[in-house]
């Protein structure tokens, strides 16, 4: 008898007063957490810093090595685009895959038990970082153009229109989205990075060779080769309506579809 009484007393004594239900976590906070997570490791920090560093190095290389008559903004823009096409997708890839490769997902997906929200926040951060990086890189390129023109002793040539500029940024954003898609699909850092180089460089070279040797492929290429249609963006102002349609069609099959498949896998998979 006495034990029963003690137990009941104990249970009522320890029951905490009911707490108010906490407010939901706002999306803006998840985005700022994801932004922080892309800076707060040594590797993440240097990856972002390398955007600026590589922009400065390529700009310096153009000033040093480009022939005098090619010291124009277009040359700088084209040169800077090359390292960006490597570094930005890697940033996008790691933001996704580190949750699995480093197993931080155990905490992230428990504190925010809606994987879609975290993925969307990561996408927002990736796009933000991508656009900011391109603006920074073009800014550095512009300074290089001024400096280069002063050294050569000519008036600086600004031969990138607003349309070209938007096209170049879109080109890099698509590269980032490809990285993002591969990250979601593979959920493994090494796999996704290797995948990106195969996708962008190996596949791109193969289709180039194929197009120059096989007539039928050259005709089909604009409708099946995403690398090719994406390349048109580097000269965006001369793109026709058909070119845009080709970009959309190839982008659907090479980007949107695999991204959708990867997302389904992310939502269903076990995090462990």
């Amino acid at each position, binding site marked *: 008898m006495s034990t029963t009484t003690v137990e009941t007393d*104990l*249970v009522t004594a*320890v*029951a*905490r007063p009911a*707490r108010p*239900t*906490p*407010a*939901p*976590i706002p999306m803006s*906070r*998840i985005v*700022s*957490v994801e932004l*922080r*997570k892309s800076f*707060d*490791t*040594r*590797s*993440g920090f240097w990856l972002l810093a390398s955007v600026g560093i590589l922009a400065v190095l390529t700009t310096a290389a153009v000033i040093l090595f480009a022939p005098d008559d090619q010291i124009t903004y277009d040359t700088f823009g084209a040169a800077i685009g090359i390292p960006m096409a490597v570094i930005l997708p890697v940033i996008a890839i790691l933001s996704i895959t*580190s949750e699995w490769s*480093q*197993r*931080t*997902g*155990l*905490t992230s*997906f*428990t*504190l*925010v*038990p*809606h994987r879609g929200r975290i993925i969307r926040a990561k996408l927002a951060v990736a796009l933000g970082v991508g656009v900011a990086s391109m603006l920074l890189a073009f800014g550095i390129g512009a300074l290089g153009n001024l400096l280069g023109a002063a050294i050569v002793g000519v008036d600086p040539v600004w031969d990138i229109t607003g349309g070209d500029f938007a096209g170049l940024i879109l080109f890099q954003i698509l590269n980032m989205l490809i990285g993002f898609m591969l990250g979601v699909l593979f959920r493994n850092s090494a796999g996704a990075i290797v995948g990106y180089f195969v996708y962008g460089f190996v596949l791109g070279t193969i289709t180039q060779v194929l197009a120059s040797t096989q007539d039928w492929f050259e005709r089909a290429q604009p409708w099946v080769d995403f690398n090719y249609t994406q390349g048109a963006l580097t000269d965006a102002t001369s793109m026709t309506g058909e070119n845009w349609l080709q970009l959309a069609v190839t982008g659907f099959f090479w980007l949107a579809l695999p991204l959708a498949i990867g997302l389904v896998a992310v939502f*269903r998979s*076990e*995090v*462990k």
Partner: protein
Amino acid sequence: MIKVDSLTKSYGGFTAVDDVTFTARPGRVTGFLGPNGAGKSTTMRIMVGLTPATSGTTEVSGRRFADLPNPGLEVGVLLDASAQHAGRTGREILTVAAHTMGLPRRRVDEMLERVSLTPSEAGRRVRNYSLGMRQRLGIATALLGDPEVLILDEPANGLDPAGIRWMRDLLRGYADEGGTVLLSSHLLHEIEVIADDLVVIGQGRIVAQGTKTELLASAGTLVRTRDVPGLARALVDADLDFSNLTDALRVDADAELVGQVAHSAGIALTELRPADGAGLEEMFLELTADTQRDTQSIHGSEGAAA
């Protein structure tokens, strides 16, 4: 309060968690005990939505985990202390978690102090942490939002004896203030000292559950002798049921009767007492033996005694 109802998880044809039902109550430490591979971690991952269940449901504080608006403030979770980005510092990991939950920065310092990580340790990258330090950091993350429910998977792994003592006191205090604590372990003795309630799982199925007092006070007498075969024969002749423990016998009879049987058979005893907890240990050994094939060493130690 944590409720698990008819939870099942199959991987292909293999059933890792098989129709598991139990409740962890507020104000009590519930020990989730089972040998390696029993299904403890899988059950806990399902509770927090990291692994989808094949069937059945789990509830924390009366809601599905995914329906908690800000889970960190209601449930503290530590599933694997090593699952952290090796390149982040301990302090940064806590800061990120605090930021996600919407807590002020000073909470991070409070927690570091609570788990006895010094500022210089907190500034080191987790790559350089010992397992014990990682467990402390993981416990700090779980406690950060001052939740009412704690779910901890093998939190004592890697802690030194002082650390285990510290954690025991911490969890005791937590439950005494009305919190619900569920912690898993594959070591009976580790969980025996800390838990109020026990849920014992083996090969995905619950094999026993109840308060520790109930489970430990199972009937019987524990008896030790140098002549185990002789005593066993005498017990068989007296028609008494008994079973082998690691280095003793547990007999389904009271101490007086067992003493008389031994006396009439002329067998000297080295110990004779009520078998508190021996029933549980026996059950646990059977479970472990099934899965880990440790039967050899159990018999070995008996052979040495005989």
